[in-house]
């Protein structure tokens, strides 16, 4: 299975990191160094991130639908990625806080030798993790399907291009160039979610009842790109830790060679550290004057800038981390917000759908991404009569296949009477009570559609309830949309209310 290597890697890394955490705790107790203890907690947070990713991978393997989770658990990986990204961001904030604390109260490092060794050990562990996860997160893997369809390993571009070539259902894995796309922007800007469902579906499934079949094929492919998001989160976490180790080692090394600590014997003044007994100026002066009167030379502890090196490096690291985490955060958040996937142009899709033969109007088109390459679409399609409906439905399904959307639910609406004026109206309007509930329906579709009925953008059911098109043209501030919309449908509301409230 595709996920096996993932699990193995995660387990391996988890055990390594946990072992190292134990080592660090023990060392910190022996040397009673607080810095080591706090670093060990960083390791612990790393372990937790890995656990989260592991749990997500385990869950996402169960892609079959259960009674409670009808979509399966595949979204777990997106969630895992989001949790890791949020965790990383919170960690960055904590590091900033600690760095600021260090700025105001610089501290020397004790036991530099131990710190160097432990730091190097941590760095090795993290570099090992980086290699493991970088290798996986970067490549795709290929497998051949029953349809005589194979593709090369690690070549993600192939998969992406397959979607783009719609006319030639090339089921072969031959490397294709990026050609003109059917859909406007087919190529996603960042390469992560570039695995698209394979086109062999087109050849195998030309029947209508295809939905269940496509699930199995999508199983393997959908998992890849979804798990990529998850692995990316893990990779970033390990990267952050590696950077931290680098900083620790660099800092300790510079400290050993540049810093001149106070020698054991003899008086010494440490100008960088604000110790409490030096609080009062006159005590300070007295002490210094007493010391200067003696014949011994006073050593002062080494250059102060060394103490500020640590927090500075930390802040630089935080910026690097935030910069790399932000795309992951954004991407997983967008998926969870039910956005239209990047590669799909709604306007274009709408127009093309409208141009399909037999389709009179399209309402309530919603396209969203479940996880990875699984895209789900729902729409109301208005057509002439039930007898011709099945052909229209077939064409629509084919159309969606061409766009790369395989899980579609199309609700037909049949024209009740042949009046042109109502062609864009929703036959099965979702009643009047849905005004407050249709959180998607308060969009104000552009006003110019008021006159341009048949070919305009879909007008949500909500606005259609009153017949007069003049109302649609009003520009409303976003806040009052719900109220306005509700007010418009007031006319028909009265009777329905009792029905709803008896629920």
């Amino acid at each position, binding site marked *: 299975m595709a996920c096996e290597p993932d699990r193995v890697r995660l387990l391996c890394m988890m055990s390594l990191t946990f072992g190292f955490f134990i080592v660090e705790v023990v060392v910190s107790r022996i040397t009673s160094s607080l810095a080591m203890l706090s670093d060990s907690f960083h390791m612990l947070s790393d372990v937790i991130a890995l656990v989260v990713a592991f749990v997500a991978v385990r869950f996402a393997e169960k892609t079959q639908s259960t009674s409670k989770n009808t979509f399966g658990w595949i*979204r777990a990986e997106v969630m895992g990625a989001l949790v890791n990204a949020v965790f990383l961001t*919170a960690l960055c904030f904590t590091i900033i*806080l600690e760095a600021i604390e260090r700025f105001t109260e610089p501290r020397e490092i004790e036991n530099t030798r131990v710190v160097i060794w432990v730091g190097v050990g941590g760095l090795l562990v993290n570099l090992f993790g980086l290699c493991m996860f970088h290798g996986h997160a970067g490549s795709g893997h290929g497998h051949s399907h029953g349809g005589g369809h194979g593709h090369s390993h690690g070549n993600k571009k192939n998969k992406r291009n397959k979607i783009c070539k719609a006319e030639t259902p090339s089921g072969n894995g031959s490397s294709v160039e990026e050609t003109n796309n059917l859909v406007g922007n087919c190529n996603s800007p960042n390469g992560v979610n570039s695995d698209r469902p394979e086109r062999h579906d087109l050849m195998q499934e030309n029947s209508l009842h295809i939905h269940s079949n496509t699930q199995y094929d999508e199983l393997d492919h959908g998992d890849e790109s979804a798990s990529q998001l998850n692995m990316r989160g893990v990779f970033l976490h390990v990267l952050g830790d590696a950077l931290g180790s680098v900083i620790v080692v660099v800092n300790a090394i510079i400290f050993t060679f540049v810093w001149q600590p106070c020698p054991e014997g003899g008086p010494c003044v440490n100008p960088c550290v604000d110790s409490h007994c030096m609080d009062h100026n006159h005590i300070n002066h007295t002490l210094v004057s007493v010391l200067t009167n003696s014949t011994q030379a006073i050593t002062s502890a080494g250059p102060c800038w060394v103490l500020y090196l640590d927090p500075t490096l930390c802040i630089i690291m935080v910026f690097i981390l935030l910069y790399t985490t932000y795309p992951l955060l954004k991407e997983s958040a967008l998926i*969870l917000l039910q956005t239209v996937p990047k590669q799909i142009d709604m306007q274009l899709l709408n127009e093309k759908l409208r141009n399909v033969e037999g389709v009179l109007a399209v309402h309530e088109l*919603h*396209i969203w991404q479940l996880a990875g390459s699984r895209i789900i679409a729902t729409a109301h399609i208005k057509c002439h009569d039930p007898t011709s409906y099945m052909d229209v439905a077939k064409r629509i399904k084919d159309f969606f296949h061409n766009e790369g959307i395989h899980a579609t639910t199309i609700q037909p609406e049949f024209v009740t009477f042949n009046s042109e004026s109502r062609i864009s109206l929703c036959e099965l309007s979702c009643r009047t009570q849905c005004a407050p*509930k249709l959180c*998607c329906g308060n969009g104000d579709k552009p006003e110019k559609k008021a006159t341009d009925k048949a070919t305009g953008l879909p007008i949500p059911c909500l606005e259609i309830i009153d017949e007069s098109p003049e109302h649609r043209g009003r520009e409303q501030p976003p806040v009052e*949309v719900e109220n306005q919309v509700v007010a418009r449908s007031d006319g028909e509301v009265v009777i329905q209310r009792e029905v709803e409230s008896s629920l």
Partner: protein
Amino acid sequence: MLPLSIKDDEYKPAKFNLLFKMSGWFRSILSDKTSRNLFFFLCLNLSFAFVELLYGIWSNSLGLISDSFHMFFDCTALLAGLAASVISRWRSNDAFSYGYVRAEVLAGFVNGLFLIFTAFFIFSEGVERALEPPDVHHERLLPVSIAGLIVNLIGIFVFQHGGHGHSHGDEGHGHSHSLFNGGVNHGQSHGGHGHGHESKHGHSHDHGHSHGHDHGHGHSHEDNHCHDDPCSPPAKGPNKQILQGIFLHIVADTLGSVGVIISALLMQNYNLMIADPICSMIISLLIGVSVVPLLRESIGILMQRTPPSLDHVLPECYQRVQQLQGVYNLQEPHFWTLCTDVNIGTLKLLVAPDADSRWILSQTHNIFTQAGVRQLYVQIDVAAM
């Protein structure tokens, strides 16, 4: 004829006026009661955090400085909640066909995550302090923490006052630790009193919480009857997640202040140095436990789980649909929650060739509307016979 004056203004593209945008945001914030409360509480918290920071710098106390940073951290949570409540009201567009309403679920989830992280952080600090107790200046910490407690009490009062929302089917009734119950069933305050409507479940909850506010009035409401009340826009229900997250955050902060006060008293009177870390650890555990319901709910929504409130109703509906004349089979039902109280469903029906599709469609819609699913997409597949 040459024009007498040349005015280029109408041909220039509209300038990106930041001030205009911000004033737009302000208007949006101040219009809704939830976001208004959030905004004022955010300002209160921010100013308090600044005061604490300045005082800490002036008196050179590291404890106060770190505590003020902690408050800043909380302010970011409030900011996230505020941003979510504004964003979720934006209209849908081409990229977001459902609009931005999921933002509030996401905000609740992220808040919950931050809270767990905070709990973990406090726990680790508690462990560190237990192993190596630093010397804490209590005489400075005590008045500040009392002031912080007052600020948080205000917050609890503001976000608790006025009502309880619906409770989900199996959650939240009758927990023994009443402290955190308020978070689960927290709803949104109405503009005024005097609604005659009762909730679906018909009871008013009495949630005790730590500071003795007892709200006995059950303002439970359903979103159905909101349209005749201009002061309570229907977006109330959707803010439930955000408010829950914010409320838990405030409770966590309050607990922190209470813990500091208790440990300070213990240390002053009984000289128990170990009290500080132990209090921290207990508090972090409590915070962690309290977040679990919020996390479970938002994870369920984000994972496209069947809405818990529909769990019992759906099998009946399936049966009823299958008994309609002409329907052979009901396939692939998917029901999920878009945001609080908005459920969406899709299903496929296999029907006989001679069945009346229109009638089947409208009946199906009826059945599911009664169950509370208002957006339904029913695909009709005619069996080839």
